[in-house]
């Protein structure tokens, strides 16, 4: 229902349709609001709720979730009996509202028509995976009688015969017809729908335009926040270690598994917490994300299973390549210092050493072992587990987080099921990750910044702001190159 804000009428869009056609789903996805109640049965939405879009506290337009039509045919019959010709139709709708007010009759129709008669543009939601039936004409006819601009929104569509059928019929009633699958729509689709609404209601065009700009900036900011979160996770996890004093060396044999498990559990908790934060950045606060038991190898398997390490992150060969480049860069300095008299021996040697080092480390263990690092007085020893020695670790973490991020970006808020990342690869042996599909320069940039973090961790030095910024840049570059790809 339109309200006055700053002495101006607020443009409103009433989302209407028959029961159970996904009106609330459309609103939930559009508003990025998981709290909108969605259900299969009729009357999940019993009251009108206005979702007001505010930018910096100023409202620009509102979208209203309404109950579904339950007795459209009877309502139309009532109105037809009172409208002799087209000029009396609007009054017939008004009379319908006035006459049934407080009677208990046509309860849902009264509720959904009120905001429309109050001046809202109409978004008629239909399910285009099901056939058109003549009784839908009753709903559309009533809406037409209100005299408000009308857009037909095909929620769920398989682009088949039914969609063609629906489009053909809706064109008779609606000013425009659009497809918007509330359970699949991503950010671009949401913007597309807003643009359609802008066309539908010119009085709302300014506000919607401003909202679209703000949404774009907000989306970019959220993406950057997410990348910072991933970089933070990688740094925290790659540099993490635990130390414990033991009575004697023999105690390590009995407690080794326990100490190593505590270390790996801490890393898992770190990852899990970070994934929750990623979800919150994209307003999926109540997301059901179960790491265990998911089908796809990407997120389903435990962080420390060999399969995950085979499928995700940079490969040992890629890490060796990055190591070789790093070694060669150092070697070049030696050759330059020798004034070219060394004939590139330092460069070649550096590349071989760097590459071999990277390869050897990457072929190492998936889990970190506990090691004695100090002997104390009285025979007791100090045991340390971590930081993780394998240079692949950081890229595996980044890859898993990137996969989740991509899934979150494309996940509409109407979906309430458990998030599952279905790998596109036909066989689980193939990579389903992001980083292996990057172009070489991007892979190299990521590998190099991860190598710096690993080096810092090995020396137990704090990671500097510059190193973090380098990692963030590499990750955002990876993310944007991936999301730029055609679907």
């Amino acid at each position: 229902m339109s309200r006055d804000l700053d002495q101006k009428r607020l443009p409103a869009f009433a989302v209407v349709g028959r029961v159970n056609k996904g009106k609330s789903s459309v609103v939930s996805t559009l508003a990025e609001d998981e709290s909108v109640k969605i259900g299969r049965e009729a009357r999940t939405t019993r009251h009108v709720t206005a979702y007001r879009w505010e930018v910096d506290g100023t409202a620009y337009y509102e979208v209203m979730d309404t109950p579904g039509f339950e007795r459209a045919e009877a309502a139309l019959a009532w109105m037809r009996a009172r409208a002799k010709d087209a000029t009396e139709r609007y009054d017939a709708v008004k009379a319908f509202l006035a006459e049934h007010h407080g009677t208990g009759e046509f309860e849902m129709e009264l509720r959904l028509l009120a905001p429309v008669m109050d001046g809202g543009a109409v978004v008629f939601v239909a399910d285009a995976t099901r056939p058109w039936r003549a009784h839908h004409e009753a709903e559309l006819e009533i809406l037409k009688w209100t005299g408000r601009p009308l857009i037909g929104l095909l929620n769920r569509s398989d682009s088949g015969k039914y969609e063609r059928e629906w489009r053909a019929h809706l064109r008779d009633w609606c000013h425009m017809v659009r497809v918007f699958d509330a359970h699949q729509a991503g950010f671009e689709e949401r913007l597309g729908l807003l643009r359609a609404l802008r066309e539908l209601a010119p009085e709302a065009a300014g506000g919607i335009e401003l909202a679209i700009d703000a949404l774009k900036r907000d989306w970019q900011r959220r993406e950057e926040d997410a990348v910072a979160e991933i970089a933070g996770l990688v740094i925290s996890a790659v540099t993490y270690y635990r130390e414990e004093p033991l009575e004697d060396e023999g105690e390590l044999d009995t407690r080794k598994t326990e100490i190593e498990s505590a270390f790996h559990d801490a890393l898992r908790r770190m990852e899990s917490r970070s994934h929750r934060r990623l979800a919150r950045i994209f307003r999926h606060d109540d997301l059901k994300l179960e790491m265990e038991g998911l089908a796809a190898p990407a997120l389903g398997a435990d962080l420390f299973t060999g399969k995950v390490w085979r499928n995700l992150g940079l490969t040992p060969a890629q890490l060796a390549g990055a190591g070789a480049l790093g070694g060669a860069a150092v070697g070049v300095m030696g050759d330059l210092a020798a004034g070219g008299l060394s004939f590139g021996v330092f460069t070649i040697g550096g590349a071989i050493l760097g590459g071999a080092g990277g390869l050897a480390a990457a072929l190492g263990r998936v889990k970190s072992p506990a090691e004695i690092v100090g002997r104390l007085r009285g025979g007791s020893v100090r045991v340390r587990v971590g930081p993780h020695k394998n240079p692949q670790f950081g890229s595996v973490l980044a890859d898993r987080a990137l996969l989740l991020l991509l899934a979150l970006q494309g996940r509409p808020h109407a979906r309430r099921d458990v998030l599952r990342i279905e790998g596109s690869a036909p066989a689980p042996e193939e990579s389903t990750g992001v980083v292996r599909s990057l172009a070489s320069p991007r892979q190299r940039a990521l590998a190099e910044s991860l190598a710096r973090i690993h080096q810092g961790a090995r020396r137990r030095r704090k990671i500097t702001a510059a190193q973090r910024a380098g990692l963030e840049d590499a990750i955002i570059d990876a993310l944007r190159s991936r999301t730029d790809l055609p679907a």
Partner: protein
Amino acid sequence: MSGGDERKLRPEDLVDLEMVAASLEDAGERGTSALQKQARKAASRSRLEVDRAPEKALAMMLRLSEISGKSSPGRRLVRAYARLRAAFVAVGLVLGVVTTTGVLVYDGASPVNVLSFLSVLIGTQLLLLLLLILGLALGRRVDSAVPALGWLRSFVSEMRRRLARRLAEASGEAPPSEVDLPPIAEESLYAGIDRWRSVALLQWLAIGFNVGIATALIGRLAVTDVVFGWSTTFGSVASFFPSLVEALALPWKGWLPAAVPEPSIVETTRFVRIGGGQIAWAGPSPSPDQLLYSGWWPFLLASVVTYALVPRLFMLALSGVMVRVRLRWAIAQSRRLERLRARMSEPLIEVVAEPVSGPETALEDAPSATSDDAPSPTAAADTFQLVSAPAPPKDSSDLGSCSLVLWGDLPDPGEKLGSALDAQLGASVSDLVQAGGLSFEETERAIEKLNSGAAARLPVVLVAEAYEAPAEELERFIQAIRKGGDGSRVVVVALVDVLETDGWTEADPEDAKMWNRGLRRLPGVGAHLLGPVRLFAPGGAT
């Protein structure tokens, strides 16, 4: 944090700002909007250009956050730092007094050696200062270059960590786990400042030390006679020393000549210890006046001030400048602070949900079923069951002759439907009506037909498309045809799904559950209202 919106950022505020940023990162988008909204409003009110005045913007953000105030980690840190500074000055003062008293020990047998004074009390300090400068120039390797500095920084960092932990505990939060505080990980924004504050602490120690030297020197001179001379074994040092004194005195030669020993005094006050508590002067024996009132003690005092105290004051000022530089650098370089600042400059989008009061209605909202297992309010002994095809529903295996209602413009599939009803429900269709379609009059006519004459005694099979939720019109229809019968009419709701090829197929079980929940609201469920039946098995009649 106190003061107005325009207050600049203090170095220790970085600690608090990092906590603000971390808490916002934890809170997610929804938890952030309140603070963001406040900050945006405040910035707008004071016409602050966030991108041009980042320090002020961050100060404003911090002031608005819950983390600011006297108990914030940053404020606690600065209080701890002030206490440390006082302690360092006191320790330096005591050390200075004790060391100087030791150097100035004079029992009348041999004079106090000026060379010892210069080397122990000034030379050592200059050496330490040089090491510190080298350490700072070496950057991160400063810890190994200046051991005490590394220790100090670790101490201050640990103190800050403990303060943060205490604050978390005091506010009722769970103490940060090891996951929150990994042993290493990232350098905090304050680390760069921490380094220079540690340098400043060392300077306070040195300043205390030098003030102690000066105090001890003047105090000793005031209460007793102290004779100064100089002595060395090396001839080269002896020949170089007068030039050294002259060079050292250069800075104050022009304006404080009394603190410049005359060459004759330098020459005459060289002594050699010859044993048995005796000394021999290298030149003619100096007079008592020359020994007591000569320029040595003013020279030594001026040397302490010029070569020990002033450099430390300079280093203190430099560390103060560097703290500001590092603060600005942190603000400019930190992505975390940049993101925090962006919260104040980026538009805040909110979608506010607000219930709209609709027209008053007489009917109460009907309770909605929430679970398949929830008992029906009207179900008696019989349970309204969802029966999957191909098993027939309870009590309906032999319906016999019945009326068939095709609901909601459902197309008539012809004979195939009849044979399916016969096979599955034992029903033979005697009459077929359409209802629930576009024409309301048709629905009314269907009710009239079903409730009149012999038809009123026949059971009714209502076939509907499963994906269309049972709406009020259907409920009214069912109630109407049950009222119209003799009260014991059996109504079976049968569900179908449609195929794009115009065929029918078995209803989706989830849709059937939805119908189950919807029909439970109706009275007489289970006794005479049966279903929903998923009418056709896959591969059945189409």
